[in-house]
């Protein structure tokens, strides 16, 4: 084999032939790797996203400076409105890479403000998307952060009571832990991807408090099998499973908007009942895979290695795991 074509392409390569930012189909890009801004810029109908309090407003944390820490111009939360496949929505996206996507004074207020606006204004979109990516409360602003979590949860339930559908989507680096895990639980529906991790107490905290024998946070496979998206979806802790791509999340969120169940005392009671049943049913299970066996999933050990398409196909066949008791 010898090279058969003349290689005089330097001139053509230096002419700025525009690879452009569309080299890869944006639709196939990873949700997990994307920044919050990348997510809001690519999830919606092109040009439809309008940001409230954009970075140029410089609404930053009043506290981080005291700790010698750099602020972010959006304090790690992007809020705005947009259109998703023809549906008007309000959206909040946490940036998991900035301070772990944490709840704090400003970032919390942006979330609360958005949810309350939805609650109070019937002319605003009747759907709110929370693109969660957060380890919980920002330690440097712990009081404001804890308060923010409580206010967000209250605002979610109030908005839902007012007829707003609130969908949480989890699939970023920080997952949804602490206040974000609690917030997710209050939503109308939860979308999760394989990489999405949902929990209240993070694996490291469990290990610190209960010992490594109880939970080895360095055993990534163990952590994944417990808090990861597939287990959460199989047990009903999340409602809709998304492939880790913009297309995947767009599709899953669209489905969640349609499927979200009404919020009432009746639905809460039903959920409580199902949760009690679930706690009993899996009480004896030592490993996540035991729970999947208990769910009568065929070949439960194969779940961790299968691709997203196979897992989604499996979910379609096993309707028993598809209910909204979380």
């Amino acid at each position: 084999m010898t090279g058969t074509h003349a290689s005089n392409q330097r001139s053509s390569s230096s002419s700025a032939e525009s690879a452009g930012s569309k080299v890869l189909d944006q639709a196939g890009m990873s949700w997990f790797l994307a920044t919050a801004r990348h997510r809001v810029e690519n999830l919606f109908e092109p040009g439809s996203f309008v940001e409230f309090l954009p970075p140029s407003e410089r609404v930053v944390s009043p506290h981080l400076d005291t700790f010698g820490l750099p602020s972010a111009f959006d304090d790690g939360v992007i809020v705005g409105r947009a259109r998703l496949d023809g549906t008007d929505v309000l959206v909040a996206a946490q940036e998991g890479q900035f301070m772990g996507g944490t709840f704090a004074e400003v970032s919390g207020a942006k979330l609360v403000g958005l949810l309350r606006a939805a609650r109070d204004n019937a002319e605003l979109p009747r759907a709110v998307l929370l693109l969660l990516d957060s380890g919980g409360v920002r330690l440097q602003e712990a009081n404001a952060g804890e308060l923010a979590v409580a206010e967000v949860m209250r605002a979610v339930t109030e908005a839902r009571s007012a007829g707003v559908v609130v969908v949480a989507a989890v699939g970023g680096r920080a997952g949804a832990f602490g206040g974000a895990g609690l917030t997710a639980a209050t939503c109308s529906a939860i979308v999760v991807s394989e990489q999405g991790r949902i929990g209240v107490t993070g694996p490291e905290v469990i290990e610190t408090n209960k010992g490594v024998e109880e939970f080895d946070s360095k055993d990534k496979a163990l952590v994944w099998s417990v808090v990861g998206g597939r287990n959460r979806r199989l047990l009903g802790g999340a409602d809709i499973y998304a492939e880790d791509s913009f297309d995947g999340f767009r599709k899953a969120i669209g489905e969640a908007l349609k499927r979200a169940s009404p919020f009432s005392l009746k639905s809460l009671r039903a959920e409580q009942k199902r949760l009690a049943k679930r706690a009993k049913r899996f009480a004896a299970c030592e490993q996540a895979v035991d729970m999947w066996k208990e769910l009568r999933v065929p070949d439960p050990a194969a779940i961790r290695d299968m691709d997203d398409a196979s897992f989604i196909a499996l979910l379609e066949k096993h309707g028993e795991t598809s209910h909204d008791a979380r």
Partner: protein
Amino acid sequence: MTVWDGQKNERERRLRDGRHLAKGKVVASADATRLLEAIIRPGDRVCLEGDNQKQADFLAQALVQADKSRIHDLHIVQSGIVLPEHLDLFEKGIATKLDYSYSGPQGGAVARLLNSGKVELGAIHTYIELFARYFVDLTPHVAITVARQADRDGNLYMGPNVEDSPVVVEATAFKQGIVVAQVNEIVAKLPRVDVPGDRVDFIIETPQPFYVEPLFTRDPAAITETQILMAMMTLKGIYQPYGIKRLNHGIGFNTAAIELLLPTYAEKLGLKGEICTHFALNPHPTLIPAIETGWVTQIHSFGSEVGMDAYMAARPDIYFLGRDGAMASNRMYCQVAGLYATDLFIGATLQIDLAGNSSTVTQDRIAGFGGAPNMGSDPHGRRHPTDPWLKAGREASSAHPKLSRGKKLVVQMIETFGKGLSPSFVEKLDALSLAEKLKMELAPVMVYADDVTHIVTEEGIANLLLCRDADEREQAIRGVAGYTEVGRGRNKRKVEELRARKAILRPEDLGVNPLDVQLSMLAARSVKDLMTWSGGLYDPPAKFRNW
């Protein structure tokens, strides 16, 4: 009277000493140390494979346990110093002299041993160079090899990890040495024969399968944006204009980034079929997406990689397989292929000096060379022309086109600052300081200045072929050395002149859009993605599984 068969007689004596421990060729694992004590003599040259990947770990432990009064002053001649036991041999005084190639995982320990004076170092070789010396002046008296299976006649089956064994065994067996093999199991019939039994004297079935180091698995999730930028520049600034089809990639995240950009970025550039079709390369998992999208015509491998067996077996059009269907590697052949039949080597390094010499040695680590200096050198014995080789030759020389040899492209890819913000560009290599300290005759230089043709950093590409004198070379190197002392010491006017002549190319000169530089551009984002690309055939090692 002249004795012509002294070596043969010596071999017979040793075999006799060993045979009382054997049934036929089979020795019980419990007798391993006694066997080695019986067949090895003080001062012997011993090769204890010791490859890049597979390890005769059981027999390494057995040799460490040998009685020092019976075995001492061994001269270890093996390519890889990989296991702690390899160093224990020197700590215990069983071995005193060392000629080797690669010590990646033990780089720190090797540096300490050299400092302590417990090792008399012959030389650090490239693989092919050490193998060559097996046939000239470093022929082993005893070779300790390792295989998956043996039959009772001593035939050996190694699966994809054939690696160094054929060359080690031939050099030893044909020069009246003794060959011992540790095997995972003894079976009646082998799937294929990698080493014929008449070259093997003793076999030992071990309690545990031998250890294989997963060396070539790079988690796509650990690739940085800067590495993606450099990979894009390399594709547009080197692979595309030279039309690089036949090549070798070093280990590292930079080259992994190139592999993962083939089905995305390079596809959009229309380069499929134009570049990266034929590889001399270990089975890198990060090449799976490119293989699956039809980029790659064929790959010959030095060794194997943990978890790739089933994938390779299912892609016989791509890899070299034995009749049993399993991949068959060979480090000697593949190194020769990489030397003579590729047009480009690209790899990472740790330090580059103002002339362009590069080294991976630091004051406290001697990782050795492996194959890089061989891949990364211009073979003056090459005579067959290819377009990239001729183009590089023309850039380098103004002699008559029909009389000027071509040139292999040797590319060093390096971020201007390494770990802990240590500058990658230096006035004096650590390798040189170390050589002075240890009174070595040669500084352990990975790629010499006269072999390197291009240096790629995040700041740009320096095309050293287009530099006409030492001063231009220095300025071209300074011109891509970023904000290191070396980079800041540039002559700005000269650097701009070099840029005007395309001896320096910036990302904007290449039309690399900075907005394209994003992690999502990689064809796989995780080891799990690689597995998915492979249709579940790739079975990643446990330490890379985070799901």
